């Protein structure tokens, strides 16, 4: 694991993803590549030398010196409003990583994979879906992606385009459903989980990422319905 030292990254593109979030593409010379699911420390330095550092999940994986972040604006945040509203191509940030060796998926893993994401918590899961698609893995993937409303989904078009016989995508809308959607909006519950996600199996690994309340609720449902807690990996953000 290469974590020593900060590397300078230059923004090459930004793209609005949701009303409060966007993706940021960067060129980071010397970036050693990363595994899907890893994160990175991002350092910002103000003209007077003041610095702030935050960790963000990477939406990208694999070799190469290009990386992608996807960031949601926290209203009280110090760093995320800048990244979502002000950052533009040519701007420079510093990076340290990749970090984390637990919440990761490697293309050589053969077991089936259930991904469950809430809001911007889908970002490391998107990295896994892309890694799975790029590697031609025979492992079966499913993603259950919960958002408040259709416009709140990160990478919606790309995820829809990647769906095929080894990657099944299910949307859950908690506040607003698209026109003609067959069910009313609602939180992910046991009925939905049992209907659209893989059944408990020793040949299954589950990754859940999202706000703390979401991850708590969903992981409790999985344990209650017979999933081995040791095969459920979680990443949470925010307080409880």
């Amino acid at each position, binding site marked *: *694991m290469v*974590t020593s030292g900060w590397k*300078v990254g230059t923004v090459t593109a930004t793209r609005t993803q949701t009303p409060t979030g966007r993706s940021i593409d960067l060129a980071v010379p010397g970036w050693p590549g990363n595994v899907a699911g890893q994160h990175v420390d991002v350092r*910002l*330095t*103000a*003209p007077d030398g*003041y*610095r*702030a*550092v*935050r*960790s963000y999940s990477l939406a990208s994986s694999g070799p190469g010196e290009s990386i992608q972040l996807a960031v949601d604006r926290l209203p009280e945040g*110090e760093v995320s409003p*800048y990244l979502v509203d*002000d*950052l533009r191509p*040519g*701007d*420079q*940030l*510093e990076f340290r990583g990749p*970090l*984390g*060796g*637990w*919440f990761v998926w490697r293309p050589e893993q053969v077991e089936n994979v259930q991904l469950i994401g809430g809001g911007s918590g889908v970002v490391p899961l998107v990295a896994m879906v892309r890694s799975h698609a790029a590697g031609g893995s025979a492992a079966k993937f499913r993603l259950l992606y919960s958002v408040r409303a259709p416009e709140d989904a990160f990478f919606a078009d790309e995820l829809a385009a990647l769906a095929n016989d080894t990657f099944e995508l299910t949307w859950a809308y908690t506040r607003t459903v698209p026109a003609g959607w067959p069910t009313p909006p609602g939180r992910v519950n046991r009925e939905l989980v049992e209907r659209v996600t893989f059944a408990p199996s020793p040949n299954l690994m589950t990754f859940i990422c999202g706000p*703390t309340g979401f991850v*708590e609720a969903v*992981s*409790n449902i*999985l*344990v209650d319905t017979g999933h081995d*807690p*040791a095969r*459920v*990996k*979680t990443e*949470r*953000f*925010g*307080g*409880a």
Partner: protein
Amino acid sequence: MSIFTRGFSGRGRDNNPALPPGQYLTEDFPVLSAGPTPRIDTDVWEFTITTESGTVHRWNWEQLMALPIEDIHTDIHCVTRWSKLATGWRGVSLDTLFADVDTSYEYVMEHSYGGYTTNVPLADLLDGQAWIAFEFEGEPLDPEHGGPARLLLPHLYFWKSAKWIRGLTMMAEDQPGFWEQNGYHMYGDPFKEERYW
């Protein structure tokens, strides 16, 4: 080489000297756990200390509650960069629990319900530095935060304060626990920013 980030000024500006380098203050209490939250009933809860001789010192919930309970006011620092200052806890000092433990080993592996582990030198658990904590801000500790009881070891990054603590095992040499095997520092001093390998 140092660069500037155009347009970034920063607005948190947490100049509090109690804040370790690279940390920001939060009023929230974020949750970081590697898996589902274990649900442990205090009827079946127990805590053990196991030494090199094979001796197992054992406490159930009732026995823990019968020990001297301390009020703890402390700052806590998570490796993911949030810190909370002046948090209030209640718990039993590890000095009390180690009073009758005979060991010549200098390292400890913390074990949790759910399988989590983390390593720490014994010296960091003694002399009023660590507790088995079961209350946070006057309320029983929530399962998400490690209830019914977690280790509280506030002078190190908070991943060293194992949630859902179930036992300590003495070790002759320092061995990496769960996060330490997954990229995090063996010791974890927040004031030295000992975050990663």
